[in-house]
């Protein structure tokens, strides 16, 4: 077990005459036993960061510490980390037993009886004991996934690194493995860095999530904080599904006026003081359809989800999404009025995207909800 401290990490790939900055000035700390999810669109530097932690990539600048030990220049095998790869990377010519035991056999001085025992107990923990003598190609995707996990667990490393380990599984199995992985991490209490491009996965699994874009860390925090108080427009857009609604509005005193006759009266104009334009954001679940109102949009599609409906509307050139009650079924082409509370409103700087105001509505503490 260990905490991870990443300080001023820079990773530049030189390919001949052009160089690509994959990670820029990254500062990130992962607490002992924490499950941290690195999330971002593809090419944002999250996998590169993970590979730097793993020791598979040399860092260009900066340092990485595990606890008090500096590991920046150590080989991956000397860092006491185990990694689960996206495509599992099981050794095709070895049985499950040999796959799981390979690392111990090479890097530890344990007697082979002890190794066998540990392989057995890990297999039992993962429910793959009957598969121990099979080759990887005889296993299903979910089983291969378990073997890959087993290979990481058996070494009892200080740090687990996981690079999109669930992305090759089908939706149902992915949801199952998500829960299982969380329970496992909780039981083993090993510091874990988990990379994914799937914001749902990040929200569901992480103790904290770190959002990256273009090689730059945007925000780190508990999932709910990142969702409710995004640091900037990118984080607000990336986290949440369906995505947040955004439009540009002119500021006139306390009034925001947007495209297609959209207007909104602010009771607290403080965040927009001194600004002429601002980006306005509203989460789909905060939009309600109302009987009468000045803000009107045209319904384009309604997607029934069973427990709710996604209502896509057109506001001039803009598309708006609202999550509405399943009993409401507006027809395509119908004009509807919508409204939202000021407490649910997000405001961002037009140029920098920096957040000026985020959600301020109260979160009720009660059964199943953690008080903040």
């Amino acid at each position, binding site marked *: 077990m260990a905490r991870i401290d990443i300080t001023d990490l820079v990773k530049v790939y030189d390919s001949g005459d052009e160089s690509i900055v994959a990670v820029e000035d990254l500062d990130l700390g992962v607490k002992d036993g924490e499950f941290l999810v690195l999330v971002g669109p593809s090419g944002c530097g999250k996998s590169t960061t993970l590979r730097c932690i793993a020791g598979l990539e040399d860092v260009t600048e900066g340092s990485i510490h595990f606890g008090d030990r500096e590991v920046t220049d150590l080989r991956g*095998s000397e860092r006491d980390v185990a990694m689960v790869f996206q495509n599992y990377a099981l050794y095709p010519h070895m049985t499950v037993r040999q796959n799981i035991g390979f690392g111990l056999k090479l890097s530890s001085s344990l007697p082979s009886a002890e190794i066998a025992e540990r392989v057995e107990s890990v297999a039992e923990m993962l429910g793959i004991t009957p598969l121990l003598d099979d080759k990887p190609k005889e296993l299903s995707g979910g089983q291969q996934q378990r073997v890959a996990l087993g290979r990481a667990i058996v070494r009892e490393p200080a740090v687990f690194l996981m690079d999109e380990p669930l992305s090759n599984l089908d939706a149902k199995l992915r949801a199952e493995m998500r829960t299982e992985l969380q329970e496992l991490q909780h039981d083993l209490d090993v510091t874990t860095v988990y990379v994914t491009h799937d914001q749902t996965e990040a929200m569901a699994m992480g103790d904290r999530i770190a959002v990256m874009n273009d090689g730059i860390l945007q925000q780190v925090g508990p999932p709910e904080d990142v969702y409710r108080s995004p640091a900037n427009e990118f984080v607000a857009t990336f986290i949440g599904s369906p995505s947040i609604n955004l439009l540009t509005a002119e500021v006139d005193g306390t009034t925001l006026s947007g495209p297609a006759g959209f207007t909104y009266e602010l009771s607290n104009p403080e965040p927009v003081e001194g600004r002429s334009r601002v980006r306005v954001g509203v989460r789909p679940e905060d939009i309600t359809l109302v009987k009468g109102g000045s803000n009107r949009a045209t319904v384009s599609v309604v997607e029934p989800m069973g427990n709710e409906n996604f209502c896509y509307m057109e506001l001039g050139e803009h598309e708006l999404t609202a999550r509405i009650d399943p009993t409401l079924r507006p027809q395509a082409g119908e004009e509807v009025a919508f409204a939202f509370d000021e407490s649910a409103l997000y405001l961002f700087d037009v140029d920098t995207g920096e957040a000026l105001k985020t959600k301020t509505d109260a979160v009720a503490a009660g059964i199943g909800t953690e008080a903040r």
Partner: protein
Amino acid sequence: MREQRRKDAVWKFLTYSFILVMTVAMMVPLYWMIVAATLPQEEFIQFPPRLYPGTHFFENFAVLHAETEFVVSIWNSVFIAVVYTVLSVLLCSMAGFAFAKYEFRFKEPIFYLILATLVLPIQLLVIPLFLMMSQIGWMDTFRAIILPWLANPIGIFLMRQNMRSIPDALLESARMDGATEFQIFYRIALPAMRSSLAALAIILFLFQWDLFLYPLVILESSANYTIPVALSGLEESRRINYDQIMVASSLAIIPLAILFLVLQKQFVSGILAGSLKE
């Protein structure tokens, strides 16, 4: 529907007929070699030729054995080809692995330089190699036959192409598991390449087995002759001993047949490797 099926049947018939004809065309010389090995020299040259085996094989063999050291030559050939194949497979797969999976300066130029050596015919290399071997006193030795051809460009090319299909994650995974670079090569990469290695082994074995001009120049004593060199010795200036050549040739294909039978399964899947997505 029925029309189409008839068309298919005709095509199938034509295809199989063609394959049959080609097979027969290739088998006839082989068959004739074996038949001729069982005939006395007089019957060999008579017309029309005798098309079924005779009973003279052991007599022919006895003459061959008495007049030459052909059995020794078979052992020489087997020894040289086996040692060469083992060493060259190791060297070519190591080079192929490096070219496929490591980054180093001038990687591409070096690789293309190696490929470029393919255009040099053996005939061109024989004289410089002869001079070199005589200067370092390696004339009439097996190592002089084996060493110059160890780094085989075709072998390196073949292994590089195949090694590229090994996913990087597999090697990285082994690296994280604490494997050294050499362990990654022989415990992960090589086992994943089994069928390609078998194909390469056959190609290299055949290359060395068929080598004629170079051993002819280097090997001086008949006790060191390889099969092709020994066979050429059976062609005397005024008379060609067809009976003995045929016996010798028949014997010479036995080791090849054994090698191919052993590696057959891997060889076929090696040729097909990469043609189907698994």
